[in-house]
C-alpha cells in the first residue's frame, strides 16, 4: 500500500514539492482508504468531519487530519490486535492521558528504515561510540516504549558501546563519562533537549566540570522544547553550552513526535527544520483551519507516509510554527523548511471538573 519504490533512501531530501506532492497524495489517499476499511473510529471521523473527502484528494490541504489529542482519548488502530508488536506512548504531561500509538512489524520496520536513512544522511553510516544523556532504565519493557525510550532505541542503531550519562539515582556518572570521553573518538551523543538542558548541563555547571572537547563528535537532540521554552533558552545559548560543557563539535536538533516516529525533521545549518521526502507539513490558522501562506505563524499539521497500523498519516498538532518556504532553503536541500515557535497557549483548564484543590 505504501509505495516506496520512488523514494531514494540514500538521498532523502531530493524530491521537489511537485514530485513529493504527487507521491504523498497517492500514498496518503491509499493509506486513508486502508484506515477507513480497518478503523471504525477513523471512518466515523472522516464521514462526519470531512464528508466531501472521497479518498482521492488532489491537494494536500484536502486530506483529512486528526487532532493530535485523538491518540490520547481514542483507541486508534488499523490492524487487528494480534498484529500489534509494539506500543509507543507519549511521556504525557502531568494529569494527562498519554498517547498510545500501536505498531505492527511492517510500520515499525518502515519507521526504522526511514530514521536510518535520515540519520545516516546527516551523520554518516558508521556506528559511533554513543553517549545517551538519559537514565539507564528509560528503556522499559520489550514492547512498551515511551517516547524517550523509542527515541533512544531509534538512534541507538548508530551507536556502539552505549553509556548512559545518568545512573538509576538520576546522578551524573561523571567519572565514567570522563573515562569514556578519553577512550573514544567520533562520539555520537543523543538525548532529549529538556533533559540535557535542565539536568545534564546544569548539573555539570553546579559541579564546575566540563567534559573534554571531542573533534568530529555530534550530538543529536530533540523534543521537549515545549518545556524549555518556558525558561526562554535561545538556540544559540543551548548550542554553545553543549559545545562548551559537553564537548560536542556538532549539534543537530530535530522536531518530531511519538505519533509520527521515523519521518522526523532535522534542523539544517541555516537553523530551519526540514521536511524529508517522506513527510510534509502545512500551517493552518488556529481558528479557521485555513492553510496559511509562507511566513505566517499557525498550527503545524504533519503529514507522513509511514503510518499504516494506526491512522496517523495526517495530524494537526498543537504546536505553532512558521513555514518559510519550499525547496529553496539557503542550505541547498529540497523540501519545506520551517521553525517551531512553541506550544499553542493552552486554553484555561475549565469545566465543572476542576475546582482547583
Amino acid at each position, binding site marked *: 500500500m505504501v509505495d516506496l519504490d520512488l523514494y531514494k533512501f540514500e538521498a532523502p531530501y531530493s524530491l521537489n514539492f511537485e514530485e513529493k506532492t504527487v507521491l504523498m497524495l497517492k500514498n496518503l489517499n491509499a493509506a486513508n482508504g486502508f484506515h477507513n476499511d480497518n478503523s471504525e473510529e477513523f471512518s*466515523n471521523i472522516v464521514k462526519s468531519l470531512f464528508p466531501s473527502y472521497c479518498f482521492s484528494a488532489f491537494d494536500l490541504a484536502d486530506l483529512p487530519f486528526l487532532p493530535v489529542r485523538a491518540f490520547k482519548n481514542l483507541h486508534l488502530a488499523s490492524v487487528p490486535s494480534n498484529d500489534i508488536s509494539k506500543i509507543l506512548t507519549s511521556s504525557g504531561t502531568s494529569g494527562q492521558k498519554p498517547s498510545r500509538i500501536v505498531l505492527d512489524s511492517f510500520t515499525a520496520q518502515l519507521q526504522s528504515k526511514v530514521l536510518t536513512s535520515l540519520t545516516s544522511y546527516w551523520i554518516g553510516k558508521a556506528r559511533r561510540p554513543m553517549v545517551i544523556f538519559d537514565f539507564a532504565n528509560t528503556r522499559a519493557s520489550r514492547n512498551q516504549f515511551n517516547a524517550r525510550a523509542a527515541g533512544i532505541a531509534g538512534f541507538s542503531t548508530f551507536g556502539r558501546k552505549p553509556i548512559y550519562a545518568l545512573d538509576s539515582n538520576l546522578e551524573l556518572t561523571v567519572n565514567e563519562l570522563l573515562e569514556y570521553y578519553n577512550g573514544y573518538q567520533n562520539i555520537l551523543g543523543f538525548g532529549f533537549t529538556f533533559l540535557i538542558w535542565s539536568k545534564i548541563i546544569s548539573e555539570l555547571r553546579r559541579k564546575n566540570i566540563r567534559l573534554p572537547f571531542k573533534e568530529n563528535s555530534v550530538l543529536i537532540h530533540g523534543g521537549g522544547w515545549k518545556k524549555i521554552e518556558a525558561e526562554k533558552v535561545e538556540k544559540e545559548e543551548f548550542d554553545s553550552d553543549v559545545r562548551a560543557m559537553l564537548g560536542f563539535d556538532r549539534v543537530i536538533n530535530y522536531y518530531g513526535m511519538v505519533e509520527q516516529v521515523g519521518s522526523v525533521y532535522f534542523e539544517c545549518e541555516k537553523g530551519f527544520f526540514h521536511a524529508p521526502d517522506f513527510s510534509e507539513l502545512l500551517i493552518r490558522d488556529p481558528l479557521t*483551519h485555513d492553510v496559511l501562506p509562507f511566513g505566517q505563524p499557525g498550527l503545524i499539521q504533519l503529514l507522513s507516509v509511514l503510518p499504516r497500523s494506526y491512522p496517523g498519516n495526517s495530524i494537526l498538532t498543537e504546536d505553532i510554527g512558521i513555514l518559510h518556504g519550499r525547496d529553496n532553503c539557503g542550505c541547498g536541500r529540497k523540501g519545506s523548511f520551517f521553525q517551531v515557535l512553541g506550544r499553542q497557549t493552552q486554553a484555561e483548564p475549565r469545566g465543572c471538573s476542576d475546582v482547583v484543590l
Partner: protein
Amino acid sequence: MSNSVEVLFPSNRRESITDIVKRVSASKASQKFLSDDMVAFIAAFSRAIFRDKSFRTHPELISLASWCRSKRIEGLIQEYSKVDRTLYLREKGVAFHIAPSNVDTIFVYSLFISLLAGNKNIIKVSSRNSEVIIQIIKVFFEVVAREPHFNFIKDYITVIQYENQNEITDIISFTADLRVIWGGDESILNIRKSPLRPTASEVAFPNRFSFSILDSSSYLELIEDDKSQLVDKFVADASTFGQQACSSPRLLFWLGSAIETKSACEDFSSRIQSISLTDDFFDMTERLVSITNFVARNECEVTGLRASFCNLKAPLNKEMIQSLRECHTGNNWLLHVSASSVTDLNEYLTHKDQTASYFGLSREDISNFLDSIEGRAIDRVVPIGSALNFDHVWDGHDLLMSFSRQVRVQR
C-alpha cells in the same frame, strides 16, 4: 509558613490558616437568619455594581447584581417568612465554600445565601486570579469603605486562595459546620478525604449535564423577529462561560413529526451558525478535540465545524447521548436529535441531567414530562434564555434551607 494562604478579603496578605480559622470561629455572630444588616449589605453590593459602568462588559456580574438587588432579596424574604411559625430558622455557624474555576461568580451566590442564613464564611476561590474575581473583591472593599457601618461584614466573609494543599482543606473542614463544594466529581471526592466535624453537613454540586427541549411546530410558527429573539436567548444560555456551566445546554431535543423537526432544526442551526461571537468565546482546538472524540463513536452530520456554533445531527439513541455526556467539554457545539413527544425522553435521561430549558411547551407538557421521568433526573425546568439564571433552589436543594438549621418548637 507552609499552612499560609493568600487572603483576598477582609485583608490582603498571606496569613496562616490556623490563625484565620481561630479568628473566624471566635468572632461574635450577632446576625440572625435574614437579618436587616445582611440584606442591606447585599443590596449595597448590588448597587455598587450597577453604579460602576465599567462592569457592563461583564454580563455575569450584571446578572449577579440583578439577582441580589433589594427587590429580589425582599421577594426571597417574603417566601421564607411564610415558613410555619413552629419552625425557627437559625445559622449553622461557619460555612466553608469551595468555588469552581469555571464560573467565577458562583461563590458570591453561595456566600450571599449563606450570609442571609447568618453564617460566617470562609471561601476558597480559584487561584487563577480571574478579572471577575478581582473586581468582586474590589467591590467588597468599596462597599465597606463607603459605608463604615458595614464593617461587621469582615467577621462574616474571608476569601482565600491556596493550591492543592489537603492539609489546609483538612484544617478548614474540621472547623466548619457546613461545607459547600461547587463543581467537579473528582474534586468532590478529593475534598471528601478531609473529614468534617461530626455535627457538620455538606452540600455538593457535582458535574451535571443540561439540554433544551423545543417544540418544532411552535418554532416554525414564530414570526421572524420572535425566531431571532429565541435564537439570541439560546445563544446566551449556550455560549456564556464557554458552554462549560452545569446548566449550559449541549443537546437539543426537537419534538414533533419527522418533517417538522427536520425543518425546525435546520432553520435554527443555520441561524446560530451565522451569529457572530468574538473569538475568545470558544477554543477551536478544544472544540475539534471533543467533537473528534464524539464522532469517532457516533457518526454524525456536522455543519459549522468552525462557525460560531457547530451543529451535529444524528438519529437518537441512548448510547450516543451517554457518549455526549462524556465527550462534551464546551466550546459551542450542539447535538440535535428528534423525538415525537416530551414523554418519550425518559429513557435517554440519567441522574447527571440537571436543567431542561424549553421552548413551546405548555404547563401540561412540562408536568407530563416530569411525571414520565423514572429515577433521579432533571432538577430544573426553565424557559430558554434562563438556563444560567441562578436560583436559590439549585440541583434539587433549597440552599437557604440547606445552609441553615431548622429549630422546631412544639407547644
